[in-house]
Each structure stands twice: as structure tokens, then as C-alpha cells.
């Protein structure tokens, strides 16, 4: 697992340096800066719904963009945008996005739900979304401090079959009520806790 990630990271770096030397393609910075209009400067979204992309694993960003391209992952607008990039461009862009620090939001959450969500998180989510959903190396998307509407949209899409759910997640989700899932989302949205 770790070896694969290291290779991916090094491969991405190599591609970027190669691109710079030849000056034959937009740099990762050039590509990643175009995201800011919707996802915020350096990938930190001011909300209310569009997710922050900063600090995600490069592999996660590339996989997400490819899933948008193919339609395997449902979207309103991302599918149309993702189709504009080659694999090399996605990798260069993703390396820069991965280098941005995870964004912290301040949003209204329900303290009781956050408390309930904390327990659900420990029981059901932590294996794949470690460190309160802030561990990029999990390659499961940064959930830490994400905007609540987006977390809710994501669950809606998973449950409706509009986005493929990893087996482990399906098993975990099946055991949870809607109320418990909402509480887990509130827990992620409510980070960092005050």
C-alpha cells in the first residue's frame, strides 16, 4: 500500500519536472489555479456547498477526475470540466492540489449531532477516514471540515447508486440510520471542534 503511494507521488513529480523542462504543457500550478473560482484560493472553499479540494492525495484527485470523466461519479458540473484534461495534466494539477494545506471552515453545526456523530465516526468511519477524515494518505477524500451540504450530497449520491461505494463503506453504511449518517456528516463538518 505504502509503496504504491510513494511510486505515485514520485511519478507525479517526475512528470511535472519533465513538463517544465520541455515547456510543452501547462504547469501544475497553472492548471490548479483555475480551480479557485469554485473551490477557493489554494483549494480552500468559502462555501456554502462546494467542497475544498486542498490537501487531498494526488491519487484521489486523479481518480475522482477520471470518474467524473467517465460518468462513474455523478456530478452537476465536474464531469463537463474534467473532460478538458489529459491524464498527464490531471496528475500535474493533482500534485499541486495535494500540496495545499487542508482548509478549515467555520460553519454552523448542531452540537448534539456532532457529539453523536463522533461516536458513529469511531465505530464506522475511522478505518478509511482516519484522523477525523484529514489523512490524505487514506485516499478516501478529505472529509475533515468539509461543507455540510456537500457531505450530504455525497451520501445521497452513494445511496442512490450514482457513485460507486467501496465494499467496506457499503457494509458500514447499511448498518446506519439516516439520522446516524447525518450525525457523522455533522461531525466532519464540525471540525475543528471549538
Amino acid at each position: 500500500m505504502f509503496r504504491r503511494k510513494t511510486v505515485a507521488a514520485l511519478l507525479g513529480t517526475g512528470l511535472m519536472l519533465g513538463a517544465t523542462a520541455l515547456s510543452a504543457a501547462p504547469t501544475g500550478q497553472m492548471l490548479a489555479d483555475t480551480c479557485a473560482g469554485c473551490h477557493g484560493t489554494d483549494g480552500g472553499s468559502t462555501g456554502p456547498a462546494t467542497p475544498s479540494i486542498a490537501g487531498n492525495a494526488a491519487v484521489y484527485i486523479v481518480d475522482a477526475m477520471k470518474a467524473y470523466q467517465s460518468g462513474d461519479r455523478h456530478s452537476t458540473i465536474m464531469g463537463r470540466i474534467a473532460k478538458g484534461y489529459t491524464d498527464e495534466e490531471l496528475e500535474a494539477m493533482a500534485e499541486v492540489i495535494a500540496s495545499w494545506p487542508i482548509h478549515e471552515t467555520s460553519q454552523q453545526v448542531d452540537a448534539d449531532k456532532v457529539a453523536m456523530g463522533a461516536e458513529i465516526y469511531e465505530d464506522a468511519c475511522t478505518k478509511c477516514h482516519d484522523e477525523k477524515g484529514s489523512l490524505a494518505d487514506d485516499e478516501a477524500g478529505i472529509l475533515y471540515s468539509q461543507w455540510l451540504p456537500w457531505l450530504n450530497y455525497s451520501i445521497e449520491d452513494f445511496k442512490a447508486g450514482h457513485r460507486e461505494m467501496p465494499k467496506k463503506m457499503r457494509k458500514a453504511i447499511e448498518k446506519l440510520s439516516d439520522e446516524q449518517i447525518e450525525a457523522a456528516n455533522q461531525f466532519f463538518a464540525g471540525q475543528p471542534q471549538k
Partner: protein
Amino acid sequence: MSKFSRRDFVKIVGSTAAATAIGLPAFTAAAGSKKVVIVGGGTAGATAAKYIKRADSSVDVTVIEPNKDYYTCYLSNEVLGGGRKMESIRFGYDGLKGHGVNVVHDMVTAIDPAAKKVTTAGGDTFDYDRCIVAPGISLRYDTIEGYSKEAAEIMPHAWKAGAQTALLRKQLEAMPDGGTVVMAPPPNPFRCPPGPYERACQIGMYLKANKPKSKILIIDAKAKFSKQKLFMQAFEKHYAGMIEWQSVEAAGGVKSVDGAAMTVTTGNGDTIKGDVINIIPAQHAGTIAKTAGLTDDSGWCPIDGKTFESTIHKGIHVIGDAAIQAPLPKSGYAANSEAKVTAAAVVALLNGKDPGDPSWVNTCYSIVGPDDAISVAMVYNLVDGKVAKVDGSGGLTPMDSSPSDRAREVQYAYSWFNNITSDIFG
């Protein structure tokens, strides 16, 4: 190996690669005082200033902008609809100052490309190594008989947000139920191609809730328009019997107006009375672009696709609505995107480097009803020295997208507004 150091390893590799890729002069100390003067502090100008400073803080960046407050054109339609306050579309320049940008509130009256000097109405001159001109649009008062700057105080264009937006909103509030709003969208090319039709929807939302017997008559200077099928769907779905669109082929557009009588006369010779008349006239690049000799016969500024450097005057880049950037549209997102590409190019050129290949994006939302927004998006690159759409990318919200997706697009539209304005002015 702890989780922490693994993550750090990836981060360090990532950020090193990023710095190398853009050629950030991370180790170049103050390289003297290379000067960039930016004419206009709107979406394009303010973004360029911030992103030049981000890429190379040693560059001396001055923005010259007459207004102390900037009102965004985007989402000003929601102010007209009553769903948003003027205050929320107002932005100042403290953010730019915080990035080390000199902000001068004055009007540029001349640009001398030979001497590399900018002169202001206040009598100051500013030297530059590179100049970025981002004056937005000027409204043409020579295409509709009877329309003028003075007439715009009676029949507002509201195509530059601020006082004009407030005026049009006031008129809508004062209008009786059963009244008629006449709208005259401009011919191409113009700022914010879907704007007039989103405006009709936003005014429609207000009238439907408050003055349901009223009508909105759109007398267009064009035969077709941006996101047309989606807008026609919205007119039918949310405003049936209220909004009527008349193509130039049907009505001939608005040929003349009479402010005293509050009437418009169409190309077909029909005279129509309006209770509120919104004339959005034809447009050209902002006045200073013409004064500085940066425009061609079209009234807009020809540019090199890679750097947006003027093809008329070297050393001056033109970005935002004033440029001939097609197939990029004259939109806020495109202006922000053009500014970043040009900022990177200007920094590269000032440091004796080759500007890299550009990449642009446009994303534009229109809020057409309660919980109903539509969008258009596209990725652009450089092909044979010209801006080109990336094949297979982009397109419109599907006509049959679900109500839940349309509701999400409203939330994404608001997110777009918050993020882009903080990217520009924050």
C-alpha cells in the same frame, strides 16, 4: 514510519514540484523594482495584481482604479430580484493592499507605450515595465436613437453594477401590479452573455411573488442567445404568461427610445410603452483602451493568445471583457482565469523566462428560479497561438437534469460567488 511523516513527505514533494513547475523565484532576493501598472481594479485587474504578488512578491504592482468600492456584475441580478442586498456584492481593496499591492484611486487618462508611462486625471504619472489594461466595457450610446448617459438615468442599463442596479431595483419596487417591464438585450459581443436572460428570471421571481399580473417583454437585438433552450425551459416552467422573448427576426430589436414618453420603438415600427425599461446597449472595450489605441475596428482589443499581450502595443496586456478573447466568453470566471494566466506570463517575462503554456476555465451559473440554477462550463487551451476550446470538454446543464441537481447548482452558484470574490479581493 509515523503517519505524520508519511503525509509530510508527500506534501513536501508536492510543494517542491509545484514551486519548480511555475518557476517561482523562491531564492531570488529582491530583484530590484520591476514595475507592473494595472489599469482597472475589477475582476481581471484585481486578480492579476494578487496573482503577480503571489508568484513574485518582489514585483512592484500598482492598481489604478477610480472607484473605492467595486460592485460585481455577477449576482447583481439577484439584487434586482430582491433576494440579495447591494452590500453583499460590494468589495473593497484592503485585501489587495494586504498582499502588498499599491492601490491608487484615480482615473487613467493616457498610456504611452513608447515611454512606458501611465498618466492619471489627478496628474500623476507611473512608469512600468509591463502594463495590464483591464477596463471592462464601455456602453455605446450611438446605436439606439434617444438613448444616452442621461437617458440611462430614466431607462437604466444596470450593466455596470452599483448605482444603476439600485436605480433599476427602485423602479421595479415602484412599478404597479399589471405593469410591463421592457428589456432590450444587446447585440454580440457583450459582457455576460447569459446575463439578460437570468435577469428576466430574477425580475420574474420578484414580480411573480409581488406583482403577478405584470409582464416582462424582452425585445432582443439577437436571433439566439446563450443557454437559450435552458432559459426558454425556465421561462415556460416558472414564468409562463409573464416572460415573452422576441427575437430580432420577429420584432427587429429596439431602434429608438423616448424617455419622456417611456416608450421604445422596434425595428418593425411598433411603439411599446413600459413601466420599467431596461436598455442594455451595445458595448465596446472600456474607454481607456480606445484612448490608448489598444482597440481595433471592432471596438475591442486584439491580443496574443498566449500572454494576452496587445498585438498593437508591446508591453501592454489586455485582459477581461475588453479583450478579444473568443472563444473565451466575456464573463467573470473567464476574466479571473485570464488574469491568472497573464499574471504568470508577466512574472515569467519580467524574470527573463519563457511564459508557459496557458490553461483557462470558464464556469457560469444562472439562477433561473427558486432552487433552480443552470450552468455552462468549458476548458480552454492554446492551439496554434490562439485560444481554443478543449475538444470534448464543457457544455451545458442537461435539459432533463433532476430537480435535486438544479437545487445543488443554486448552492454551487453561491459557492462560486463566494469563492471567486475571495480569490479576487480577499
